[in-house]
């Protein structure tokens, strides 16, 4: 059997899920390329982190979205278990406040029937307010979908990639694709900022940039992906308002409504907005006064009360890819042979990602006639970082006896130990991440995600990165740029 060299462009949730699924087979030699310093830093990172039930997709307009969303919801239950990803399944409530909204909301019950989503029903005020006392008591009712869940989206991508690498996938970060090489109507590889990578199959999972990658392969020149911006507030864990269900307002034609959820890490999060940006604004993740104000107002309508503004620990914005007509482009092409699009994956893309991965696998199998021989020793499991915070004091004591670094707390807000930071650095190295960033450590350990937003721990983490990678302290990378510009004395010299 000849192995096919596969390059997957984009280590977001779609690309990494495809990598994981393909890694189950002997047929592929897989390289996952990512332009950013770390995995999951595009749309996968900054979103509402909902695992949707699938009752919001119109099956006649978006049959693939409807089907893969439902399948993805089921698959995530298994994937989260195998990969130790923080997830919970509280169900969601689409809350309506007037008869017009009620009418709109009830349409989703019809869609639920068509899409065979279990348990979707209407609940009225008396039941609703018992189901979740944090809802504004002026609500008339809600459409309840019990199969909705929420996941730690950034940890999910990290977990999927770690598992894929464990099963033979090669990760290449800071490798921006500059061209797709096609000879005689066949793909031959990709030109990246880290050199040329030979490939028989190139899978485009580049999210916001998937239009550009598609054009590089000469496919679908009219296809454009527009960024749609969503802004959010994240509150401290220590607030009284903690919705039990995933709450949201009734959707309008361009958004799923504003959500108010308690994340898997116990923070209240509200948002998003849905603002269409120009096609080339693919890195415009700035927040705006207007957007944040809108989220605040809508959440005030949705909730009985909002915590004070002083309990906000972060505001942020993310961009979702919006393809023409909202249609995903998932296709394997004859011309050029070997080019596969998993492009323009907009919502419910995160939910659907595992199902998209299997769908892509089947496309490749059928189109390129691949035998699909299962690996004998494919490992479905990935363990999580050992965390002090999740453990009893007895257990922490035992950990410290084995390794005193568990007894040295680096992040006070989130109780993250030195041992966890070191483990994260080692995991990043093992995964093939070229630059160990402070943000990379934050997303893996949660250090810096608390009330102080890293003002107490960022330099400690930078010191550990410096110590364990040999990079001088001032050259440690925060996100995409350096922590400092130089040593005090060196700068003085350059000035004088």
């Amino acid at each position, binding site marked *: 059997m000849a192995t096919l060299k596969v390059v997957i462009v984009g280590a977001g949730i779609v690309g990494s899920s495809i990598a994981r699924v393909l890694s189950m087979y002997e047929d592929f030699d897989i390289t996952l390329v990512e332009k950013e310093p770390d995995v999951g830093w595009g749309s996968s990172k900054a979103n509402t982190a909902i695992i949707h039930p699938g009752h919001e997709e119109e099956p006649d307009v978006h049959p693939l979205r409807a089907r893969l969303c439902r399948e993805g919801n089921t698959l995530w239950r298994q994937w989260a278990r195998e990969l130790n990803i923080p997830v919970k399944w509280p169900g969601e409530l689409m809350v309506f406040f007037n008869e017009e909204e009620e009418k709109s909301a009830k349409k989703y019950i019809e869609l639920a029937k068509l899409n065979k989503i279990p348990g979707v029903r209407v609940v009225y005020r008396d039941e609703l307010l018992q189901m979740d006392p944090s809802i504004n008591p002026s609500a008339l009712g809600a459409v309840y979908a019990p199969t909705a869940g929420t996941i730690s989206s950034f940890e999910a991508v990290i977990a999927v990639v770690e598992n894929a690498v464990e099963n033979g996938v090669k990760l290449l970060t800071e490798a921006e694709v500059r061209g797709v090489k096609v000879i005689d109507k066949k793909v031959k590889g990709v030109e990246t900022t880290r050199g040329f990578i030979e490939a028989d199959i190139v899978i485009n999972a580049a999210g916001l940039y998937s239009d550009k990658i598609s054009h590089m392969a000469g496919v679908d020149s009219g296809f454009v992906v527009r960024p749609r911006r969503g802004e959010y507030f994240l509150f401290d864990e220590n607030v009284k308002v903690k919705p039990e269900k995933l709450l949201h307002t009734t959707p309008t034609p361009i958004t799923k409504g504003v959500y108010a959820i308690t994340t898997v890490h116990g923070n209240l999060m509200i948002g998003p907005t849905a603002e269409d940006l120009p096609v080339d604004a693919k890195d415009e993740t700035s927040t705006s006064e207007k957007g944040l104000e809108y989220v605040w107002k809508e959440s005030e309508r949705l909730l009985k009360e909002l915590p004070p503004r002083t309990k906000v620990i972060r505001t942020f914005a993310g961009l979702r890819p919006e393809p023409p007509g909202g249609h995903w482009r998932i296709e394997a092409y004859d011309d050029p042979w070997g080019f596969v699009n998993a492009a323009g994956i907009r919502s419910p893309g995160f939910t659907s990602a595992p199902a998209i991965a299997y769908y892509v696998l089947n496309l490749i199998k059928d189109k390129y006639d691949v035998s699909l021989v299962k690996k004998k020793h494919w490992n479905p499991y990935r363990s999580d970082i050992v965390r002090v915070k999740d453990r009893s004091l007895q257990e922490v004591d035992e950990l410290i006896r084995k390794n005193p670094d568990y007894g040295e707390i680096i992040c006070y807000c989130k109780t993250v130990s030195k041992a966890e930071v070191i483990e994260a650095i080692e995991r990043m190295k093992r995964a093939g991440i070229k630059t160990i960033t402070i943000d990379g450590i934050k997303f893996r350990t949660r250090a810096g995600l608390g009330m102080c937003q890293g003002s107490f721990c960022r330099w400690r983490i930078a010191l550990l990165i410096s110590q364990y990678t040999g990079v001088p302290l001032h050259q440690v990378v925060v996100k995409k740029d350096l922590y400092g510009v130089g040593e*005090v004395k060196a700068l003085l010299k350059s000035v*004088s």
Partner: protein
Amino acid sequence: MIEVLELNYDSVVIGAGPAGIAAAIRAQELGLKTVLVENRDLLGGIPLQCVHPGFGLHYFREDLTGTEFIYRFFDKMEKLGVEYLLKSHVHSIELVAHNEKIVNVITPQGVMRLKTKTLIYTAGARERHIFEINVVGDRPAGIYTAGEAQTLMDIYGIIPGKEIVIIGSGDVGLIMARRFALEGAKVKAVIELMHYPGGLMRNIVQCLQDYDIPLYLGHVVTRVVGKKRVEKVIVAKVDEKLKPIKGTEFEIPCDTVVLAAGLIPNLDMLEKIGLIIDPYTRGPIVNEFLETNIPGVFVAGNALVINDLVDYVVEQGELAAEGARYFIENDGIPTIDWKPVVRGRNIRFIVPHYISGKRDVILYARVQQPEKNVIVAIPEIGWKMKQFNVRPAEMIRVKLTKRLLERASSAEKISMEVIPSE
């Protein structure tokens, strides 16, 4: 199962900055079995990284740097043999009875349970960060809190950036402006929301004017711009209600934003066990022993109230230790007819919140806004102090003797007010 180590104390002091060190020393002197618990791998807290002078003018009657100031206490600690734990993180506090608390501590030697009669909490403050001051825009590298920038420069010799904009003209912001200028960085501006400076007058002169650093009063940074690294900030004028005025925006190109936008007492650990907070200080509500609503839990230093002088911080630490001793001697602070201390005209906050009138007390207060030619008064005891100038940046510290307070023995409350001197 391994049993975790359990130890007994009269007083556990949390946080080894100046307040905690002073409290631990005093408690030890008073004969209490004391332990000082510190998160970091060294004692001293923030003064360690304060290489500028201005420390100890009241306490030692000498002008010392922060480092020199705190080292004097180390010598004293050593002589007295004060017990301390480094790299020790307070995981949680359990309230067992009014005179028994258990402090669970994670240390590299294992988990310890410190059983104690009293707790002196001196964990200082945290800095307000960029998401707390209504700044929108990008979230690139190049944004630091002043404390973080100071740690980098003065402990590790790393300069964070070359072209700096500082948000906030409190003393921290002013001192950092000078530090950056001294290290060869260009401080483009200090931006202050209020229409008056937030720091001491001496610092405005010595840290900004002497280095030609522009101070923008009544201005606000509305937006940070920069994809990888900070590229510029957008600044606007604010109106009387401190809202940005449309059309007044201008840009300041820079590579670094340093936040010195205020400190907030760091009390999460105590809030979890029911601490009550004064919305004006954002610190706890305390009586004259600096005891909080939780019996036997005392708070001092910047965890109590944001101070402008380390001398006051030390004084509060010592007072809390004396309170702890009084608590232990009496098996709890005896029942007292507390008199509330009330904010009068142009007083933003006043600490402590309750006094007995039966012993000397020190009151710490700040005014709401600057005012000239005023009298600071406590009418219930007929106390007055003429002031040419009162400013929010300068804490009012008043020591009232027991004799003076006896004049108010029939009053229901004690109040402080600022009135025009005419």
